[in-house]
């Protein structure tokens, strides 16, 4: 408001702005180019070369990409990633929402209990992984001891190909349900009380109130939580690496772990870059699907409202 007036008073022409702002954009642009655009283009460039550390680089076109479908480890890694991600989005969402509903009720020591529940989120993943590794131990671990108390035979947890991914997801769920709870709790606090009052008058049950009032109203929050979980789960590396290193065999090797092996253990930079790009595309596609679902949901709500 003040600026145009000053302009008028100094009598400068009105169109003085645009060109002289240019230099101010440059630092930001330079940084964006240097830390985002350049690595991106460089990765694309590397992925088109046969490049092993210590050996000369050769241009091979799309060869690295053609290797992927024929590489069973890569194909398996994709399935592991999708399974791991799906489970570690759905389970924390479920348990997080459940916890939020519980902690939304009023009961003594609620604040303290909430604080307790959030604790796992604050710990370092590698430390968590080491503790869980001990708990998973088939002979000495506390989990099998707990199972033995209720008469269930000992399990192999992360030491068997069939149970390794669910076991890892268990750790992930334990750590990240609190985050979902926090987000959903925020959502619950924002819901007005009137709909519940009228529902009570109409004789609705607790479950009906949850299903038809609470759930629709916290859906946007669940989407945000789901989005955050999706990104986190896809890029999850530390917990898997510290507990199983992708084992037993390759049973818990996700794309991230395979990528790490290819690039930093086998020093196959070209192939590693190609995998990174494909992984990137996969993330973008999944995020797009998620956004699409959200759009559809909104549209449904609008329809329902109308």
């Amino acid at each position, binding site marked *: 408001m003040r600026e145009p007036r000053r302009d008028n008073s100094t009598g400068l022409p009105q169109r003085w702005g645009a060109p002289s702002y240019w230099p101010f954009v440059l630092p930001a642009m330079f940084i964006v180019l240097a830390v985002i655009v350049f690595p991106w283009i460089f990765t694309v460039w590397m992925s088109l070369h046969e490049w092993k*550390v210590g050996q*000369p680089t050769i241009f091979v076109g799309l060869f690295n990409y053609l290797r992927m479908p024929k590489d069973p480890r890569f194909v398996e890694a994709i399935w592991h990633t999708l399974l791991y991600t799906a489970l570690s989005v759905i389970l924390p969402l479920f348990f997080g929402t459940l916890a939020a509903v519980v902690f939304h009720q009023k009961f003594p020591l609620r604040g303290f209990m909430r604080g307790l529940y959030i604790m796992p989120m604050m710990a370092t993943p590698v430390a968590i992984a080491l503790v869980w590794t001990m708990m998973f131990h088939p002979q000495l671990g506390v989990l099998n001891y707990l199972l033995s108390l209720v008469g269930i035979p*000992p399990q*192999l947890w992360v030491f068997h190909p069939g149970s390794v991914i669910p076991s890892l997801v268990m750790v992930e769920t334990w750590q990240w349900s609190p985050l979902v709870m926090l987000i959903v709790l925020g959502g619950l606090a924002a819901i007005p009380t009137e709909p519940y009052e009228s529902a009570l008058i109409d004789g609705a049950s607790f479950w009906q109130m949850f299903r038809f009032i609470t759930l629709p109203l916290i859906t946007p929050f669940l989407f945000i939580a789901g989005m955050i979980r999706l990104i986190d789960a896809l890029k999850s590396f530390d917990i898997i690496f510290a507990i199983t290193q992708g*084992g037993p*065999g390759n049973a818990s090797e996700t794309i991230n772990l395979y990528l790490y092996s290819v690039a930093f*253990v086998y020093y196959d930079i070209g192939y590693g870059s190609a995998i990174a790009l494909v992984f990137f595309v996969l993330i973008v596609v999944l995020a797009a699907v998620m956004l699409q679902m959200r759009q559809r949901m909104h549209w449904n709500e609008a329809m329902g409202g109308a």
Partner: protein
Amino acid sequence: MFDRRISRRTVLKGSVAAGALAVLGRPAQAQSGVNWKKYAGTKLEVILAKGPRGDNLQKYIKEFTDLTGIQVESEQIPEQQQRQKAVIELASGKPSFDVIHLSYHVQKRQFEKAGWLANLSGFIKDPTLTAPDLVESDFSAAGLKYAKDDKGQLLSLPWSVDYFILYYNKEIFAKAGATVPKTLDEMNALAQKLTDEKAGIFGYVGRGLKNANMTLWTNYFLNYGGEFLDAKGNILTAGPEAIEATKSYDRSNKFSPPGVAGFNWMESLAAFAQGRAAMWIDGVGWAPGVENPNSSRVVGKVGYAMVPAGPKGQYSATYGDGIGIAAASKNKEAAYLLCQWVVSKQQGARLLQAGGGVPFRNSILNDEGVRKGVTLPKEWFQSVIDAGKISKLGLPVIVPVAEFRDLFGAAVTATLAGADPAAELKKAYDQFVPILERSEKTS
């Protein structure tokens, strides 16, 4: 993890031995034409893998500085990270270090092919640089095989060797009236007999974890008559010997503690040291762990024997590390003096006596004074000597060792869960062949 500190008794014994060495060693140095002080004032950077070898170097490095006037900066980095860091820096052409500690069984071919190590052939023949007691023929055959490239150039000095042996629990053996098995079949039968799941005692334990398991599996493979490569350099680890070896390996592991598919040496050592496994095949270097009263319940009850024979022979899978000089280093002569000191009789004796490793040099192993200072049981030392006689390299000498270990290791781990050995090995083979071909392409 283990207490590798040295007790007072060790120090006393050690100093007696070292004193004897000093008496023997000093005049040799004085008479020789080596001018130790020639490179005084030089600064060297050393990159070490974390472990007893690195400790042994760092602990006594002051003596080297006193002898030569060369300043040494060294850092120990955990093995995996050290390998990564070294490769990336060497590939850049300007490594930050002059001297590098390398694992032969992983890096030999890679380093040779890339030309990262300085040729020491000239240095070791030069009497102004090399003490007369250091001659190539003093290193064991495996050591020389590791240190030399196919043109016969000496690219590093062999530092410490690791032989695979059979550890067994004498107490469990005595209870069952068992004797040390001579063949793998006997061992598997015995493992079955000794397993008592209710009591939590298992007949056997060994590495099952992907990648780590290959160092153990290859000992079975060698004893089943396997060779890693044919004359044309094709990999042979999916052939009939490999399939039979895998079956035997799987059978042994049937009598292992649950979860063995995730065991590395550390978990195996724990199971054995807790008295829960009667037999364990792994490197000689873990003996300080099983003989340490703070972490082991089987101290004094451990027997040491050769890995039982297979149908086609009896070998001890051998691994080792060495110390070399970066080709890009500007202080090669000074660095060579350091390498020489690292593998010297005195340093080797200290390493052996503390149980931190076994030197490649026969003159150290055969020295009575050194032997007397060894704190581990006599039987252990004997197993080291015996294993040396049947030693055979435990991994193929190729560039993509890591891929080999991962792919075939995953196949072997899968067979532990019941998959068919032939099919799994074939699958690994099909994936590995193109990788090997690409790595050996000359261009």
